[in-house]
């Protein structure tokens, strides 16, 4: 069998060009084709290479001008858990340097004048063999042989490190303890090899579901532990844990059987639920047993509030997904008027959804929940399609010829599917051109990505208008106007409702109206509930208005 070094990269640190060329030729004679041979002439460029590249083999001349190559060894060793091959070269046979090189961690010490292809090849071969052994031992110490995941002892160490990191970065981490449900059953019914294979396959699925920064270990027979790192918002843990639960939806093929494995998972969050790793492990375990007690195939947070929140959110998501399908969602319409003529310019379509008892859900909350996942995209399409159908029906019945304003989440525009859907619709139904306004709330940011802007402009060219909703409540009001093609500003009701007194809100309102005038942007005052405010805004020359004073949002058949 021929050894092939064509994948290997070698760094030679040597200040003498003749010696470098000689060594290079010797290496090629002894090893055959070599992937890459880099050359550093001094310690400075050697350090540069060591820092930025990973070579598998280093040849270091000890005498580099005034400096010594010995120090480089330490640098290489620091960078690697198991060091690559390091061979010291010297012009003279010096026992002291030899010993020092060995102490520093060099694998061999060779005298230049004695080098031969045979000697080099043999030296390298022997070193590789011992390195492979060293690696095997390290693997045994750190990894679980069955699953290839980290084992318990190294996991504890990694957990401690992660906690230290989390303290420094002020970001949260979660410890997830997972226990397979009824694993004994699987072993008893299908045999131990099947059980083992099941664990191996589950491990791969878990590893692939997680981010590369997360740590996953097998910490017991049928127990896994996961550290989810660098999360700011506890709600993100929910998403990650739900992704982990998803791993078990599809049956696992094991030795000819399709096994539906399920897990119980417990989650504890640092620093919220514990102050050190011992406590975190304890609390995560306790949460896992809670999940078992709840009937398995589920997860539980150590912090019950978060758990309730998770459960509630999940139930809304499930119900909403079926509501989109079964037609229990509705759109209500609220007119927007020209303040001067009192004529209806447009209608804003607003989502309404009743539960089984006929009570309305809080739309804002529902949308906030939908926005945390992909459901918002589906919901957005439903709202858009339904509004378009309604408008076309009104157009046909000559009931209304103006525009429709449709609420859109920034998330929908950050994803190009929605824009494409709109463009298709406008192509199919040209009667919608110049009739659609998209209201985007400031609270969720549009990405100021060139592609997003390009899409918005494409829609503007098709006669769509963009409106900033809740203007004045977010942080980016003005930058929004500068970055995106916006035609309408809607002043938030929290400002509008206070314009009767001489105060900051009045000044802000005046300023926004002035900005609108200067930029040729239509300004709409939202949330007008009485005549006084309406009169005041007319006096301020606010162009358009909307609110209960004129009309509540109404179902299509009430209008």
């Amino acid at each position, binding site marked *: *069998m*021929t*050894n*092939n*070094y*064509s*994948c*290997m990269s070698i760094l030679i640190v040597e200040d003498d060009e003749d010696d470098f060329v000689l060594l290079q030729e010797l290496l090629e004679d002894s090893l055959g084709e070599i*992937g*890459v041979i880099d050359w550093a002439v001094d310690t400075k460029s050697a350090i540069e290479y060591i820092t930025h590249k*990973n070579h*598998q083999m280093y040849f270091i001349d000890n005498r580099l001008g005034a400096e010594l190559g010995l120090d480089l060894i330490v640098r290489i060793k620091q*960078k*690697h*858990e*198991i*060091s*690559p091959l390091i061979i010291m070269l010297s012009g003279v046979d010096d026992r002291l340097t030899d010993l020092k090189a060995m102490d520093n961690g060099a694998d061999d010490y060779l005298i230049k004048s004695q080098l031969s292809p045979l000697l080099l090849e043999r030296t390298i071969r022997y070193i*590789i063999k011992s*390195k*492979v052994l*060293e*690696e095997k031992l390290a*693997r045994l110490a750190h*990894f679980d*042989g*069955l*699953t*290839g995941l980290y084992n318990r002892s190294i996991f504890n160490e990694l957990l401690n490190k992660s906690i230290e990191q989390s303290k420094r970065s002020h970001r949260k981490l979660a410890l997830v303890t997972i226990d397979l449900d009824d694993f004994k059953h699987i072993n008893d019914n299908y045999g131990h*090899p099947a059980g*083992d*294979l099941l664990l*191996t*396959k589950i*491990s*791969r*699925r878990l*590893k*692939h579901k997680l981010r590369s920064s997360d740590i996953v270990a097998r910490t017991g027979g049928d127990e896994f532990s996961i550290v989810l790192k660098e999360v700011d918002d506890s709600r993100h843990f929910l998403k990650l844990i739900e992704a982990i639960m998803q791993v078990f939806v599809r049956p*696992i*093929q094991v*030795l*000819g059987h399709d096994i539906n494995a399920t897990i119980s998972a417990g989650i504890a969050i640092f620093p919220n639920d514990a102050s050190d790793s011992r406590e975190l492990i304890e609390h995560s375990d306790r949460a896992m047993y809670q999940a078992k007690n709840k009937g398995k195939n589920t997860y539980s947070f150590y912090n019950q509030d978060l758990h309730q929140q998770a459960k509630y959110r999940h139930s809304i998501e499930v119900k909403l997904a079926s509501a989109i399908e079964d037609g229990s969602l509705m759109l209500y319409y609220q007119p927007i008027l020209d303040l001067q003529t009192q004529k209806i310019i447009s209608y804003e379509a607003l989502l309404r959804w009743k539960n089984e008892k006929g009570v309305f859900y809080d739309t804002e909350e529902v949308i906030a929940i939908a926005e945390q996942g992909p459901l918002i995209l589906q919901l957005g399409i439903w709202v858009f399609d339904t509004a378009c159908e309604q408008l076309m029906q009104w157009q046909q019945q000559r009931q209304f010829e103006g525009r429709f304003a449709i609420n859109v989440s920034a998330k929908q525009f950050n994803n190009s599917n929605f824009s494409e859907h709109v463009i298709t619709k406008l192509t199919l139904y040209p009667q919608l051109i110049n009739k659609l306004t998209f209201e985007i709330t400031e609270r969720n940011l549009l990405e100021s990505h060139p592609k997003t802007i390009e899409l918005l402009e494409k829609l503007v060219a098709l006669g769509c208008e963009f409106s900033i909703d809740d203007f004045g409540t977010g942080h980016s009001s003005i930058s929004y106007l500068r970055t995106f093609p916006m035609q309408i500003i809607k002043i938030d009701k929290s400002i509008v409702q206070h314009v009767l007194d001489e105060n900051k809100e009045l000044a802000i309102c005046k300023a926004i109206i002035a900005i609108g005038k200067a930029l040729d942007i239509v300004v709409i005052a939202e949330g007008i509930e009485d005549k006084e405010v309406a009169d005041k805004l007319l006096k301020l020359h606010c162009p358009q208005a909307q609110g209960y004073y004129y009309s509540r949002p109404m179902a299509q058949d009430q209008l």
Partner: protein
Amino acid sequence: MSDNLVSIHMCDDDPDDQLLVSDALQEAKLANPIDFSNNGLELLQYLRREGEFSHLKDQPLPGLILLDLNMPIMDGREVLIELKKDPVFKSIPVVILTTSKAEEDIAKSYDMGVNSFVIKPVSFDTLVNLVKSMASYWFHIVSLPNTDK
């Protein structure tokens, strides 16, 4: 360097097995590209660069095929017969993956002109070692220690 590495093709209907083998390759520090098909029919389309694989027209054929026996649509035995009939494909080494010794014995009795049989290991470490020895056998690659932290 990796541009001219021999590629591996795995034909197996179990996505978990596909995942395991590609992870094992990575763990073994083998940079050989690997791709997958889910049954015998797909394997033939893949090798013939037909249908969804037509974009691979200019790519070289794989240097090794890992073939599962039990698959829907067209199983391992059926596709092997096709492969061995083809003047080009018959020279690609095929390693049959089986789930047990018994299955291997049965498969061997068919005398399908296969290069070797391998029982899918239960543990990940064994799989990594298996992949390493397969690579050194078929591609003559020296196994170097894993030096990354």
